Each structure stands twice: as structure tokens, then as C-alpha cells.
């Protein structure tokens, strides 16, 4: 296939809220352009990981090239760059957007625009992308496309008349989408003669070929043999292969300015291929890097420990394997008196953490105990030093601490006005400070709060959803640190401190939290063969106590005649339950206990 001139190329991504139909629309586009035949069409082609399909979300970005014969008689090359859809992966989204000239904004005709979508739209507008709004699911009886179009006009400033009405499910209107991509989105600019300048918007690790780097060429040409330099990583490589996605990888002779594709260059580590980095050519004067590069950095940390301490080495190797493909995942050895040897891992957010945890358990068959996630606190010591701690147990003794600062976020919530009361209450409960309230068209409001990151990492999103019957949506970004009255809450089980259960809490809430935490632990720690005392303590002073009474009965007085197999199976089942628990001292503690601090009612 001949390489197209930039005028015949369109690079775009799709911005949509979860469930608004992004994947279905992408599938229709692939089908109509013949990129994927109807026969090979598995539901949601772009979400290739099992986890992605199960959860209906995109974790890694994907790219696919579609040939399209437009109504003007010309052949075009359409590059769809699919983006992750969760707030944990906001940076990856921004880089994928930076690789495009336009974006399709897909909005559910019965739901309207959600906060997170809006955040991405603003990001796209900031990057100068042209937006084509698409109102999807118009086949559903409760759809209100006109109202949604009005809303788009009011919020984003695109004329309601320019919205395309589509049902991705039935295929209605999808042909107009393809035409709009060609006619309304700009062709890429860029000079094939200029020095190579390419943006890395994703990468993946292939065990046979090394790192596959997903690139968008802004200027210049890339072909096998090109000596490239990663500007931020400061590493040089020789390109072995360049190619495009159709949707499988297919080698091509060269990639030119404006095109989207991949390169392979014997890169062994995803850390050398950082999302957002700029690739140029060795030996030519370095061009300006693509703006917006940022080192992906974790927001929350948690300890991962193997239930069976013999699995430590396996866990290490599994984390190394995952890290090959996940530059945002960090880990370093951690040892806990209670849980033994494990790793302190850094994640972009809770979803990221759950995904890593699930992959370790599923793909590597590991039984894990995960400690409650924590944010990183800045501790100012009396001797003038500042230390950053991401593990509550590392908090220095109160006598050594001058003050502690905690990270805060700016949170934006879009919601129907009727839920304002409940959501403001939620923010208040989480030590939030009201910043701003703005009414939007219809009955919507944009609410802005400033609150501690630590207060939103766990179930804030679920609470937000349940207190707004699912209508509120949120986005947040880090907004500095603030000095707070924070203390470490310790938990003693059978008289011994369990470091992995320590938490950092606000002084005013400490007594209450301590009491609730031991009450909760009493519910989740099963009865043992002896009575187990649970205590909450602050600075060595016990502030609450509960007791798990000893097990009273665990025997079946009946043995079933000659069917001892049944007896053995019952015991084996019980044993499986036991094996999922961690023996701390002589007490068996289940996974839920380590998360108990997160599920306290406030």
C-alpha cells in the first residue's frame, strides 16, 4: 500500500464516559472500513486484555489504522488512537490526545456529559484538537438527543446543529461519522524533510521482540536502521522495524510525518520508552521536545505480601514482569514484622492497584495480602530534615516530628442540582473545603472542592455515585501539600502491634476512628481457638479495645458412615479458607482486616 500524503491522513481519538459507547462505536468503524471483517469481530476488539473486557474499560492505549474511501473519491488513512477511560490514567490520556488532530466526543443521548469526559474535552481543546460531538444511543426510548446537543453547545461551545446523531449499536449514522472525520478534522501538518520528531504515546512489552513503542510522527521519517534518541530518557537505539496496526502489527518500509505506528528497536525496558517522551534522530541538532512530558508518578502506595512467605521470589519476578509493561508501577522491598517480606508498591490510583493485584493473582497464581493504600506524607523533623513517607508505619516517633503535611487535590464534580446537598455533605465529611459552585445549563452544577488526597482514594467515588443515584461524576488533580494535625493509629492484636494495620489519621478523628477500627476488625477476624484482644492505640496509649471470643464449635458430630471422602472434602474446603489468611503471631488474619481502615463509617 502506498504511503499517503499527510493530506490524506486523519489522526483522532474518542473521548467518552464509561458505558457511553466508545468501544461499540470503534467496533462499527472497524467493521465499516473493512479493517476487521465481521467474522473476526469479537466484541470490543480494542480492549484486548481479559481484564479490560471484563471491566469494560480500556487500560492500555491502542492504535489502529483504517483505510477509508470517502465520498470525495479519495482514499484516506484514519488512525484511531484509543485512550484509557479512568481517572487513574489521566496523563496517558493527555499523551494519546497530543498524538491527534481531532477527537470524537461520544455522549450518551440519555445521560449527557459527565465530569470526567468534560475534563478530557478541555484537555483536548487545550491541545488544539478539533472536536466532533456524537450523540450516541439515539435508538433508546429514553434518549433526549436535542437536550444533550443543547448542553454540548452550552458547555463546550460547539453548535448543537453540528452534533451527529448515532446509534453505534444499530450502526445508524455511523457512515456520517466517517465523513465527518475526513471533512471536519484537520490533516496533520509536519514536514517529512525536517529532523525526526515523534511522540511516544504508549508502549508495550513483547517477550520476543522487546518493547513495542507506539509513536506519532510530527516531523521527519522513521525507517528500520534509523538511529534514534529518546530525549527525556537520554537513550539511543537503532530501529529494527517500523509498522502500523491493522489492527494487528504489520511492518512497513517507513513512517512519515503525520503518521501513527510503532517501532521496535531492541529496547529491553519500558522505562527507556516513557510515555510523553520525544524521539529524535542521533547526529542531528535536537529539535524542541513535544511539550507536556511528565514522569508518571504514583499517587497511592500499598504493601503487597505473599500469604505464603515461600512465594516472595515469585512475587518479585511477577512484579518485574508486570513492570516491563507498566512504567507507572513502582515497587521496592518492604519488610513487616507482621506480614514478613513483601513489596511496597506505588500506583496511579486505586483502580491501577486493583488491576495489578488481580493480574498477580490470576496470571501468576499468587495469593496476596494487600495492606490499606496510603498517600505520601511529608514529615518535617525537628532536626530540619524533611522525609516523605508512604507507609504509616514509617512515621517517626512523635518526639522527632515538627509537623506533618498531607497531599491535597482539587476535585471537580458535575452533578444534577438536586444532589448538591448530599455531595457537599460527603466532601465535608472527608475534610473537604468548598471552593466554587457554578450552575450549568439545565439542572447541572459544577462543584469544586479542595480536599485531602487520602480521603478520596478509597470509596469516595462509590459514595459519590450512590449519593447521586449514579448521576455525579468526578475528576481531580493534585493541588499541593498542607500542614495538618495527623497522628499514627496503631493496632495491637493479642497484645502485639501489627505494623501493617497502622494508619495515619487526623487527630480530631483519631479516637473515633480507633474505636470503629477495632469494632470492624472484630467483625472480620474469625474466631480462633483462643480469645483475641484487639486494641487501638495512639502513641502507646490504648484508646479502644474489643475482643474476638474463642471459637466455640467447629466439629461435625456425624461422620458419614463409610463416606470419609465427604469428611475430607469438607476439611479441605475449610483449609482453603484458612490458607487465604495470614498468620500474624498465632492469630489468623484475613485480607479484609488489612483494608478495614478504609471501610469505616464516618
Amino acid at each position: 500500500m502506498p504511503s499517503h500524503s499527510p493530506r490524506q491522513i486523519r489522526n483522532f481519538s474518542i473521548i467518552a464516559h464509561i458505558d457511553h459507547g466508545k468501544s461499540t462505536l470503534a467496533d462499527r468503524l472497524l467493521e465499516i472500513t473493512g479493517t476487521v471483517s465481521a467474522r473476526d469481530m469479537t466484541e470490543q476488539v480494542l480492549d484486548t486484555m481479559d481484564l479490560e473486557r471484563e471491566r469494560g474499560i480500556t487500560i492500555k492505549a491502542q492504535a489502529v489504522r483504517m483505510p477509508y474511501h470517502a465520498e470525495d473519491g479519495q482514499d484516506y488513512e484514519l488512525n484511531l488512537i484509543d485512550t484509557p477511560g479512568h481517572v487513574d490514567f489521566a496523563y496517558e490520556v493527555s499523551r494519546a490526545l497530543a498524538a491527534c488532530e481531532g477527537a470524537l466526543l461520544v455522549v450518551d443521548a440519555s445521560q449527557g456529559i459527565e465530569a470526567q469526559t468534560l475534563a478530557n474535552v478541555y484537555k483536548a481543546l487545550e491541545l488544539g484538537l478539533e472536536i466532533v460531538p456524537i450523540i450516541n444511543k439515539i435508538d433508546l426510548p429514553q434518549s433526549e438527543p436535542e437536550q444533550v446537543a443543547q448542553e454540548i453547545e452550552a458547555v463546550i461551545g460547539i453548535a448543537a446543529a453540528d452534533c451527529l446523531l448515532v446509534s453505534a449499536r444499530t450502526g445508524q449514522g455511523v457512515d456520517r461519522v466517517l465523513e465527518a472525520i475526513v471533512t471536519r478534522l484537520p490533516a496533520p501538518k509536519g514536514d517529512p524533510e525536517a529532523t525526526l520528531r515523534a511522540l511516544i504515546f504508549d508502549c508495550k512489552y513483547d517477550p520476543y521482540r522487546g518493547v513495542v513503542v507506539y509513536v506519532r510522527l510530527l516531523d521527519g521519517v522513521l525507517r528500520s536502521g534509523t538511529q534514534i534518541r529518546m530525549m527525556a530518557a537520554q537513550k539511543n537505539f537503532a530501529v529494527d522495524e517500523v509498522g502500523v496496526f491493522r489492527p494487528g502489527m504489520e511492518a512497513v518500509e517507513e513512517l512519515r510525518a503525520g503518521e501513527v505506528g510503532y517501532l521496535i528497536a531492541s529496547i529491553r525496558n519500558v522505562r527507556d520508552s516513557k510515555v510523553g517522551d520525544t524521539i529524535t534522530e542521533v547526529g542531528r541538532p535536537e529539535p524542541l521536545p513535544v511539550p507536556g512530558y511528565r514522569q508518571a508518578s504514583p499517587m497511592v502506595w500499598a504493601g503487597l505480601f505473599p500469604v505464603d512467605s515461600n512465594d516472595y521470589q515469585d512475587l518479585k519476578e511477577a512484579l518485574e514482569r508486570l513492570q516491563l509493561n507498566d512504567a507507572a508501577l513502582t515497587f521496592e522491598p518492604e519488610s513487616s514484622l507482621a506480614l514478613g517480606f513483601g513489596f511496597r508498591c506505588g500506583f496511579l490510583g486505586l483502580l491501577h492497584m486493583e488491576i495489578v493485584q488481580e493480574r498477580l493473582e490470576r496470571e501468576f497464581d499468587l495469593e496476596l495480602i494487600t495492606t490499606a493504600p496510603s498517600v505520601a506524607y511529608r514529615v518535617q523533623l525537628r532536626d530540619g530534615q524533611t522525609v516523605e513517607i508512604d507507609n504509616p508505619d514509617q512515621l517517626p516517633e512523635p518526639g522527632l516530628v515538627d509537623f506533618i503535611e498531607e497531599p491535597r487535590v482539587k476535585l471537580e464534580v458535575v452533578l444534577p442540582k438536586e444532589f448538591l446537598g448530599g455531595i457537599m455533605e460527603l466532601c465535608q465529611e472527608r475534610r473537604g473545603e468548598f471552593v466554587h459552585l457554578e450552575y450549568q445549563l439545565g439542572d447541572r452544577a459544577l462543584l469544586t472542592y479542595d480536599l485531602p488526597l487520602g480521603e478520596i482514594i478509597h470509596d469516595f467515588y462509590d459514595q459519590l455515585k450512590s449519593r447521586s443515584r449514579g448521576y455525579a461524576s468526578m475528576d481531580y488533580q493534585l493541588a499541593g501539600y498542607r500542614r495538618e494535625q495527623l497522628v499514627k493509629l496503631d493496632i495491637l492484636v493479642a497484645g502485639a502491634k501489627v505494623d501493617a494495620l497502622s494508619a495515619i489519621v487526623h487527630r480530631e478523628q483519631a479516637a473515633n476512628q480507633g474505636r470503629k477500627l477495632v469494632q470492624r476488625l472484630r467483625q472480620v477476624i474469625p474466631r480462633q481457638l483462643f480469645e483475641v484482644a484487639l486494641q487501638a492505640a495512639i502513641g502507646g496509649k490504648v484508646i479502644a479495645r474489643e475482643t474476638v471470643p474463642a471459637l466455640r464449635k467447629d466439629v461435625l458430630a456425624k461422620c458419614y458412615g463409610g463416606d470419609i471422602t465427604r469428611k475430607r472434602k469438607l476439611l479441605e474446603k475449610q483449609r482453603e479458607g484458612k490458607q487465604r489468611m495470614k498468620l500474624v503471631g498465632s492469630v489468623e488474619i484475613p485480607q479484609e482486616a488489612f483494608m478495614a481502615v478504609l471501610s469505616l463509617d464516618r
Partner: protein
Amino acid sequence: MVPGPARSLYLHIPFCTQRCHYCDFAIQVGGGDLQDRYLQALLEELRWLVEARVPAPLESVFLGGGTPSLLRPDLLERLLQAVVAGFGLAPQAEVTIEANPEGVSSEGVRLWASLGINRVSLGVQSLEDDTLRWLGRSHDAAQAERALAVLRRGSIAALSCDLIYAVPGQDAATFEGGLRRVLEFQPEHVSCYELTVEPGTPLARGVAAGRRQSPQVEDFLEQRRLAVAVLGEAGLGQYEVSNYARPGWESRHNLVYWQGGPYLAAGSGAHGFLGPAEAAGLGFEGTGAALRYWHLRNASSYMRSVGDGSRGLRGHEWLTPEDLALERLACGLRLAAGVELQTSAQLRTAAHLQGLGLLEFSGGRVRATSNGVDVLDRLTLELAAI
């Protein structure tokens, strides 16, 4: 090691007049017209066993059910004659029949004795009419007492009574009263089982629907201790979690199960257990430390399967040495004699459990204390965790 050949035989007679509310055994309600055909199938399976196995006279035969006392006398006679003729009985062999009170008559008992039956296990369950009704039993207390009297007048040496405790609505005093009335008949052996709610039973459905109360832990703890005390006082020592006997009158057949010995089984739903050599001799393929096999639970399916040469079998499993060790530990801990521990890690755990007052050492063995029996399954897992 499972020493062979098996010298114990279990025969399942599935017929019952009705299904008790708590029962999940392989039974057939009614089925009087099936008795001839069922017996034919059973005899067919026995013939095959006799041909295939290394001859060795039986030390114990157990006719269980179901309600074996419902079997027509002529059929019972043919069955026992076939066992004696085919397998041979060792001198002093224990031959047990399970009976329900309504199936006990002087005439019947005479027949049983003449056929060599020397032990009757009577399903008394309770001597309270309210409790019997709650359990869905087909007899009342008076019938049970009459049956006990008939059996004591007859010439069968060993009498065992089954009782159920921790039945909702029956308090400790009432349970104790029933126990003492049973003891007036001086049984050699008593089995006291706690009521368990088994899935799929009418009781389980009642509990799920909130119509019936489930057994309470407090009742279990109290009444189990009561049984140990009252029976012990009468000279019946607890030799297994739920079984009590005068010295020398322990059920030899059941001890084979609990001590991990081999046993043959025939009839619907019956489970057999064999050493590898004997299993191979009986045509089971594969290998392992021991083999357990079981029959189709439904009487008609069983008969069909025997008819077409499939021997009525539903399945089998080869036990690994670890499986066998776990079963030996689980069953051994149920016995007053206790178990011998195999590893030093087990000994360490046992010492910890002794400190908690749940296990005691006697000689080279460990056994559960009274408090330990309440949590026996957990003790088993603790000791098996190594």
C-alpha cells in the same frame, strides 16, 4: 498402608416408609414392589465380588440403610445366606442390622438371631413425641420403648440406640430424661448425633424459609457434655465423638472406618475403601495409596447399572498419601484412643494446643480434651497444616 484384604462388608438397604425431615441418605420411600429386584441386583454385585476377591472370612457385616428392618424376611434370609456362603464369616464376627422401632417384632428378632445377626442398631432418636414429630420420624415414643423391650427379651446380644440431640425445642432436661429412659434398657452401645441441617433436606428448606429453627450452638455444647456425663455414669464410655459403649462393646465395623481399615460395600449409595492391591484385583484402574469407591444413590439407577454389567458404581477416587494422612488424622482425632503424630512440626502444634487445653498427650499419642472435641475439625486442620 491399608492392609488387605478387606474383612468388613457394608450392605445398603435403601427402603424407608417415609423420609425423615433431616435425612440426606440414599433412601427409597416405599418401594415394596422393588424389593425383589433390588435384592437380585445386590446378590449379583455380591456374586461378582466373591468371584473377584481373594477369599478371606469377614469380621464384620453391617446392614445399613434406609431401613434394613423393612426388608422382607425371605429376602433378608437369602441375603445373609449368600454372604455366609460366598464370603464366609469369622468366628465371633459382628453382624449388625439397623432397625426402626416400627419394624421390630419378637418374631423378627428371632429370625435375625437365627440368621447370625448379633447386633441391632435401633433408630430411637428421641423418646419425646414432640421431638419425634419435629424430626419427621415415622414412630412415636411408645413404639420405640416397646421395640427396646422386645429386643431386650430376645437373644441378640448387642443393642445399640441412635439418639439425636440439639433438636430445637428440646431442652437439656428433656434430652437427659430421654437418655435415662433409654439407659433403663441397658443398651451396650449408644450413638448420640447432633442434629445437622443437611442441604437439600426438608429441614434445610424449612430453615431457609424461616419456618423452622436451626440447631443452636449452646444446645450442642450443653447436651453433648450431658451425654458424656450421663452415659459415662452408666458405664458407657465415649470412644468416638458421637459413640459410647460398655468396654468391649464398641462397634467393630465402625472402628474399621475410623481407623482407616479397608471395607467392601455393596448396594445403592454405599462407599467402600480398599488397599491398592485389592482394588487392582477388583478391576479398578489407576494407582494411589488407597481407593474409595461409591455406588449410584438412586435405587433404580443402581439396579439398571448392575443389570448392564456396570456394577452399580457411580465413582471412585484414588487417595494420595496426603489424602490418606488427612483422613487418618481426622478420624483418629475423633477417637478416644487418639492418634500418633508423624512429624516434629505436628508435635510442636500439639504442644501449643495442649497449652490451650484442647489436646492432651497420653503415651505416644494425642487425643482431644472435652473442650477440644467442640472444635475438633479446627484441631485437625491445625495439625494437618504442616
